[in-house]
Structure formats: C-alpha cells, structure tokens
C-alpha cells in the first residue's frame, strides 16, 4: 500500500492576516502610505521623455515602412492582373 503525502489546503488572505497579527510582525508605520507616495512622485521625469522619444521613433518607423509595405501588398494582390506588353 502506498503512502500518499497530503498537503494542507492553501490559506486564505484573512487567515494569513490573522496569523501575522498573532506574531506581531504586521505593524505598519503610520506614515507608510505617505512615504510610498513620495517615492512614487519622485520617480525621474526622464522616463516620460524617453517614452515620448520612443513613441516618435515608432511612428517614424511605421510611416517609413508604410509606403513600401502598402506598395508591396498592392503589387502582390494585383500581381496576376498587372500587364506586360506583347506586340
């Protein structure tokens, strides 16, 4: 007869909060939220600049590919219909 290992059922969030409360480890400082928000506000502004530059490069690339892309697709669709002269 085989012995099967049985795992305990996963704990819910409420059970986890209750367990942490008994250990005294879940002591959130009073100014925790304020400090976090300050950190977020002080994120470097350059990221948006970089995003802006990337955005323009993407647009330029898209428009640059657009002309040959559309030309190629149209030429492909009408490849059978485009005529050569035979006198």
């Amino acid at each position, binding site marked *: 007869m085989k012995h099967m290992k049985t795992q305990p059922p996963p704990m819910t969030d409420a059970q986890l909060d209750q367990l942490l409360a008994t250990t005294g480890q879940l002591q959130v400082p009073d100014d925790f939220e304020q400090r976090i928000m300050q950190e977020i506000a002080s994120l470097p502004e350059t990221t948006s600049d970089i995003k802006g530059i990337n955005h323009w490069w993407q647009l330029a690339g898209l428009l640059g590919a*657009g002309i040959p892309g*559309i030309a190629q697709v149209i030429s492909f669709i009408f490849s*059978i*219909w485009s005529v050569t*002269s*035979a*006198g």
Partner: protein
Amino acid sequence: MLVNEENNMNTTTQRKPLIAGFMSLILPGFGQLYNGQLNKGILLFIGFTLSVIPLPTLTLWLPAVFTLPLLIISLLLTLSIWLYAIINAWKQARLQPGYVPKAWQQPATYIGAFLIAMLILSITTDYVRSHLIEAFTIPSSSMLPTVLKGDLLFADKRYNCPGCKHHAQRGDIAIFVYPNNRSWYYIKRIIALPGDRVSIKDQTVFINGQALTQSTAQENDANLVTEKTETSSYQVRWSKNDALTMAEMTVPAGAVFVLGDNRSASNDSRKFGTVPMMDVVGKARQLWFSYGEDGVRWERLGEVVK
C-alpha cells in the same frame, strides 16, 4: 499585492486603434501582432497569401473558361481578408485600453516579421508571374481577327519548359521573347515545329507539303482563311492584293516558325526568322478585358483564345 499593482501600472500601455489599423493596412495580420494576437496575425497573413496563390493556380488545371471567374473570386477574397484584418485590428485595439505587452513585442520582432513577410510576398509574386500565370496587353493588330489591339489576356506560363505539362504545338498562340530586342515580348501563332518544312504560296501555308487552308471567305478588302492543324482550327486574315510567296524552308532544331494571324500586317518569322524554343515563355489562354476606339468590347470578356 501593492507591488503587483505597481508593476502592472508601469508596464501597461494603451493600444492605439489607428496604429493597429494602419499596421494591418501595411500588412494583413501585422496589426494583430501589435495587439498581441500572434496566432491570429499569422493565420491572417497566411490566409491572405494563400488567397492570392492557390485559386489562380487551381484555374490552370480547369478549363480555360473558368480562369477569369475564379481569378475575380480570388481577388475579392483577398481584398476581404485585407479589409477584415484592418477593421479587426482597429476594433481589438479599442478593447484593450490597459494592455500589458508580451515579452516578444519588441521593435526587433516587428521589423523582422515585416521584412520576412515582404520577402515572402516578393518571392511569391515573382514565382506566380514567371511560372504560373501572367497578364499581357496587346498593343498591335498583328493577331487580328483572333486577338485584337487593346485586348488583355492571361497566359499560361506552365508551357514549353522542362517538366511542363504543355509543350509547344502547331496552332498554339504563343508569347515569346522578340529575337531582335530581348526586352520585348511578341504574341504570334506557332505554325511549324523543329524539322518541319514550311512554305507560303497564294495565301496558303504549307507544312511538310500539306496545305493548312480549309476554306476562304471574303470580307471587304480581305480574305478570311480558315486554317486547321492537328489540334486546332482558326481564322487568319490576308489582304486581297497580298501575293506574298515564301520559298520552302526547314525549321531548325530547337526553334519554331511563327506567323501573325493578320498575315498581311504582321512582323513574324517571315521577317525575323525562327524563334528559339527556349524563348517561348507562355501560351495565350483567356481574354479578361478588351477595349478599343469604341470603348470596352464587353462581348469579348472571358473569351477563350484559340
């Protein structure tokens, strides 16, 4: 939990419907790639490519009369797939205002996919036109009354090549490279094959001593002569006062002797000699458009060229 939300906030980017639609306009399925629908994008591109290729290929195995209708269906199907790809990409992008880009959605992926797709389309286009089917426009009246000036026709390119099912036969209307200017194509009827003896006397063509003429009818200032070969019967036109005679000649190996059906107004083998067999690249199959001084000749659309 807070950390996860923060990560999501940092990586979420808006999908822009106009960009998605424009990408599918450039290349069907490309907008779906932008929306993160990899499988759908690939399927749309494959569907688009196949709709241009298999139907035209299929027509070549069916009677020539089906060529034009099937090619029109193929064209409509292709345009529908393209339109669907554009609208679908635009709509899908609108449904994804908070989108988390997938790991493969990098500029290099888009550039690579675009270049590969362009290469596939370019190779396929060249292959179809050089090996399967090609459209030609006729700028001269040298093939009157069979092919008129202003006719547009499809030619079967699976003709007279190594491994091809169809070989050059007497009576075929062939398209070949003009011997005196290799950048031009000519369309004429193959009259004699390698080794045949050909001569012309009193508006009658003789092949190996046998006249091709079956009957002659009058039309204003011309004679309409019906000629017959082993595989075909056709009408040619001679001016009434044309008394051209050509002494008997033997067609050399690896060449064919060609004549225009408008015998009195055609630059053909009587002037430029025989045509190397390897320069014969296609056989006329079906008219798909025709226009003249009086406008579109609707009655000729879809006519099988014989």
